């Protein structure tokens, strides 16, 4: 179980890294004739030219958005050309749409693998930021004790009660609604870290406060180690297991938070492929029934969250979903 989850995460990370090579088409390329085009069926037999091959899709009825395959012109897939794993040139019967096309005629599969980069990078950076700030503040509070300690635990209790998505929503809505993608990335990282660090800090504080009385720390202090050295070399490493556990909670929460914010139009702009912006196309119910591949980003999110939960379950902890 745990092993399976870890392998799934590795595969997703590799897919994100290799996105430009795996994607058959550029993620922002619009194919005018392919709005809501269904996935291309990759055929192996049927006596085509060189298998595997596809039949080019032709829009038969723009009103019904009905596509037909042109069976008279089979086109072979091209492997390892244009520094892509597999593609079909547009001129030669393409595009190759492995998961169909979206409302603007863009390749869903290509957007999906590129989205993994933005969505995962944002969640990862936000998690690291929350862990870093939380470990620093919690470590300092646990070591120093006293007033900071008291203020910190009150503050954490307060943050824990707040529904995170509303706070994220309010903070994001308080900024200009249209921002460039890089700024959105920074803004969301800051918001997520702001929501995540107090919980981390509380746990780290508790561990550091109990560890600092142990013999090895006392010995270190007696040998003349400075507080920062004690914290950095001895106390914070003791929290590594706790931090790893927190990361498995924060990472899925941040992926979901990005998806939610982008879905309601307060995250990334539509031009940036993320799992949240892609899901916007699923908002139209009547179109969704005819184009279920619009739910592909939902499947991607599911796979990542499931992988993390498998790892959590495998380490003997209980996965919960109480802080979306």
């Amino acid at each position: 179980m745990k092993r399976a989850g870890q392998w799934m995460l590795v595969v997703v990370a590799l897919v994100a890294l290799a996105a430009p090579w795996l994607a058959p088409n550029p993620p922002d390329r619009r194919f005018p004739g392919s709005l809501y085009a269904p996935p291309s069926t990759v055929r192996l037999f049927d006596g085509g030219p060189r298998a595997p091959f596809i039949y080019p899709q032709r829009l038969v009825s723009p009103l019904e958005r009905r596509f037909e395959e042109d069976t008279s012109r089979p086109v072979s897939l091209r492997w390892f050309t244009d520094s892509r794993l597999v593609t079909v040139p547009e001129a030669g019967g393409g595009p190759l749409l492995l998961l169909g096309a979206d409302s603007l005629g863009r390749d869903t599969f290509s957007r999906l693998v590129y989205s993994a980069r933005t969505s995962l990078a944002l969640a990862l950076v936000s998690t690291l930021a929350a862990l870093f700030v939380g470990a620093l503040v919690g470590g300092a509070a646990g070591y120093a004790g006293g007033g900071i300690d008291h203020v910190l635990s009150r503050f954490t209790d307060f943050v824990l009660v707040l529904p995170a998505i509303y706070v994220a929503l309010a903070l994001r809505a308080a900024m200009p609604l249209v921002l460039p993608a890089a700024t959105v990335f920074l803004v969301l990282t800051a918001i997520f870290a702001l929501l995540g660090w107090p919980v981390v800090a509380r746990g780290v504080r508790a561990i550091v406060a109990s560890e600092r009385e142990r013999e090895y720390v006392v010995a270190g202090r007696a040998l003349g180690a400075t507080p920062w050295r004690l914290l950095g070399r001895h106390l914070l490493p003791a929290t590594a297991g706790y931090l790893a556990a927190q990361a498995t909670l924060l990472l899925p929460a941040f992926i979901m938070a990005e998806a939610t914010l982008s879905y309601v139009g307060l995250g990334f702009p539509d031009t940036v492929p993320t799992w949240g912006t892609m899901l916007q196309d699923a908002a139209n119910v009547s179109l969704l029934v005819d184009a279920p591949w619009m739910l592909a980003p939902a499947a991607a999110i599911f796979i990542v969250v499931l992988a993390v939960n498998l790892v959590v379950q495998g380490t003997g902890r209980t996965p919960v979903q109480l802080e979306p």
Partner: protein
Amino acid sequence: MLAQRLIFALLLVFVVSSAALLLARLAPGDVTAQLGPFASASEISGIRARFDLDRSPAGQWLVWLTRVVRFDFGDSFLYNRPVRGLVVRAAANTAVLAVAALALATLLGIPLGVVSGSRHSAGAALIRAVSLVCLSVPPLLTSLLLVFIAASTRWFPTGGMTSVDAIGLRSFAWLADVAAHLPLPALALALPVAATFERLQAQSMTEALHQPFTVAAMARGLSPRDVIVRHAWPVSLRPICGVYGLAIGALLSGSFVVEFVTAWPGLGRLMYEALRARDIYLVAGCAAMGGLFLAVGSVIGDLLLAAADPRVREGQAT
């Protein structure tokens, strides 16, 4: 204890709504952007005066506070009517959704958790697998998926709280109409929470079954069923009661996205509209109501914890 909780609740509502008011006020742009580019200067200044935007942020906050103590939450620009009525109605809709979801989650999660925590059968393994899957499908995904299923099969209406023609219905028919619209968003909201309950219940059930008192009960010759239902289960409820307060908060969070996807006219949607339009008093009103929800949720959680654990009741809490 109770007085302390009440003070905390009041403080929560006060801090959350004040913060929301100031945040909406300090954000760039204001509600007059809604008037469009052709609004005259006098129109704009009229609206600014009506919503106290001509005062300083602190001044506006004080004016708002003096009105709030008389339960006057100001007017909404978007709806052009008092905020109080709007927020109360939206909160009632959200409460219907949240209570239905909580009931569903409890009725599904706890019995399944008792079963999967007390047995080693194929059924228990299946329950565990299903709930692990449900845990990995947050409300955004469950609601999208259920809407998709509803739209393809036409088993349920896909959105809204009532049908388009529900205005003319009499009270009973209207209730039936709402009841037809409720299952989809309630299920979407309940599934992850139900899975959480199932996992926690299963874990604490397993732990309770390994404690000396259950072994002793077994040794006295009680049937396994009696041991589970009458001895182990009440003890194992403690962690569940501990997260009930959190679960209510999670339902409130989840309800935002579920309301958004299924067009349920609740507090989350209202808050979103208000935030986007910088409808400042509506933002503050929604935040106050949200704070009240959270306070009520944490009080209910505490009461449940006290009911399940005598140590908390006697004030020697851990």
